[in-house]
């Protein structure tokens, strides 16, 4: 603006200089906190490709001569292949089952006008506030009673159930954003209730499906407490328990332990990097709507 008097220009320059300092400070703080968040992960990555002597001589340095044998050794000796298999099976089945069951229940409450919806919501909400350790023993006794202990079903069944509350609440939030007229039109055109739900409404709440899959997937993949009690034999170990048991055996072979930690975390990190926005939105979708 050429017509501005010089006094205002001077003020503008001062303000710009102040905002430059502000911007620089913003970056400094963010860089420092990012270093705090990422530093330990990078050091783990470095340590995972160091031989034992080179780790002890300089644990934090950048590995100039990466030693990848840790990975093959951890994979073989830690029995990580069956643990990966178990983790994938348990995570996929429980995410699918609880996603479908939770979505149907949410659909019943939002669209099919189930009675007592307040009670239904409190019923599911209870599952989100009861700490895992409180429910652990009763669930173990139940699994024992129905003869599931010692099978992979003993891990799958509790996760299918424990992840239902979150699926339910998130789908309730998302179904509310879809106008009821959509389902009504489909129903009047002769679509059955289940087909309306499955082919019309579910595609409309695709972000909810992603959110539920991510939140429940991360929880099941990483959970440690439940499998610690329920996975009574090593053939049932999921990854967190497998690496803890591996750590018990090779507690001083840090390269090996860190290689196993990286291997167990890699799938989630990969999905996170690829679907980053969905993760961040997923965390908040359950909380704020």
């Amino acid at each position, binding site marked *: 603006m050429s017509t501005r008097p010089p006094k205002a220009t001077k003020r503008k320059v001062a303000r710009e200089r102040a905002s430059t300092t502000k911007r620089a400070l913003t970056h400094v703080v963010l860089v420092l906190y*990012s270093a705090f968040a990422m530093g330990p992960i990078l050091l783990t990555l470095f340590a995972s490709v160091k031989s034992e002597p080179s780790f002890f001589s300089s644990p*934090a340095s950048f590995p100039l001569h990466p030693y990848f044998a840790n990975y093959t050794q951890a994979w073989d000796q830690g029995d990580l292949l069956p643990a990966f298999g178990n983790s994938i099976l348990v995570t996929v089945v429980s995410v699918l089952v609880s996603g479908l069951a939770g979505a149907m229940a949410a659909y019943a409450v939002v669209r099919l006008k189930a009675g007592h919806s307040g009670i239904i919501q409190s019923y599911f909400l209870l*599952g989100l506030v009861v700490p895992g350790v409180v429910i652990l023993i009763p669930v173990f006794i139940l699994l024992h009673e129905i003869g599931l202990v010692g099978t992979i079903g003993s891990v799958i069944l509790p996760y299918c159930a424990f992840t239902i509350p979150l699926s339910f609440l998130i789908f309730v939030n998302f179904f509310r954003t879809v106008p009821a007229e959509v389902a009504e039109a489909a129903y009047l055109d002769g679509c059955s209730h289940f087909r309306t739900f499955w082919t019309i409404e579910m595609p409309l709440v695709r972000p909810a499906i992603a959110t539920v899959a991510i939140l429940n997937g991360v929880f099941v993949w990483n959970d*440690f407490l439940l499998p610690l009690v329920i996975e009574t034999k090593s053939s049932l170990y999921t990854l967190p328990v497998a690496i803890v048991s591996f750590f018990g055996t090779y507690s001083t072979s840090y390269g090996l332990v860190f290689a196993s*930690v990286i291997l167990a975390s890699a799938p989630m990190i990969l999905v996170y*990097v690829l679907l980053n926005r969905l993760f961040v939105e997923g965390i908040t979708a359950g909380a704020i709507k």
Partner: protein
Amino acid sequence: MASTMTAVPPGAVPGPGEAGRKKKRRLSPRLPAGRFLLPAVLLYGFVFIVPFIGSLPLSFSDWNGISRFSFSGIGNFKNVVTSSAFLSALEHNAIMVGSFFVLSNVVALGLALLLNRRPAGYQVYRTLIFLPAILSLVATGFIWTVLLDPQIGVINPLLQSMGLGFVHPQWLASPHLALATVVLVSWWQWGGVPMVIYGAGLKSIPGELLDAAQVDGAIGLKRMQYVVLPLLRPAIVVTTVLTFVTAFQSFAVVYILEGIEGAPGGATDVVGTLIYRTAFGTGAFSSTANLGYSEANAVGVMVVLAVGLVFMQLYFRHRIVEL
């Protein structure tokens, strides 16, 4: 942004024009809501609600999992409320709640405010800062066990290289420092969650509102106090509840860093490790196991949680500003 987590009565809000007219052709006179509800209600009821309620009588017994079941009255509860182990574990959880609350509303909110200025590459910052939140607590525990180890670790040599070698903190072994270390490590893993929740809350504040506030003379801290914070209430409520629940879930980090006993000398014992240890003993089904007493501890924790959540509900109920 009308509601926080739940508590909005469900059912579609009538659209424009349909208020007065009685709807004849609603979905169908008899909706199959029951059939849609059944799988979730049954599965979750059978594996969660039934064991949860069924286990309550256990807390009135001294069953160890093997012996014959017999009731022993309210003795367990008397022991729980007078037990120093239970009270000190509870205190440690309370310290975690308090620390997480402060960290959430200072560090996480601060980071969210900085990111909300949309500096160049803010998405990269957010991705990196949030990354630990997707790591397992087991991985977190291992990483920090090694970093903090006074012999081989990384942190202490780093302090030494900065000329602070004389401090030489015993992060995990000093009774004064151990709980703070557990809190710090747990925060490292979890801190990204409140940050993105606050980020979403800030994003939902309309820019015109902030501009209007600026025109009215609310800038800097004033704008924060009178405009931003009140509008951020829903996010603050969610974060506070999450903080509370998460801090009571604490188990794996303590288990990996300090062992099931909550070393040193129980300084890091939390209700999670206490209940686990009481139920299963320090080894697998050892002689110290007492399922009945463990359940009484669990019930005690539930009571504390319920009181806390009800209190929060009452406190926050009238303090949410709606847009």
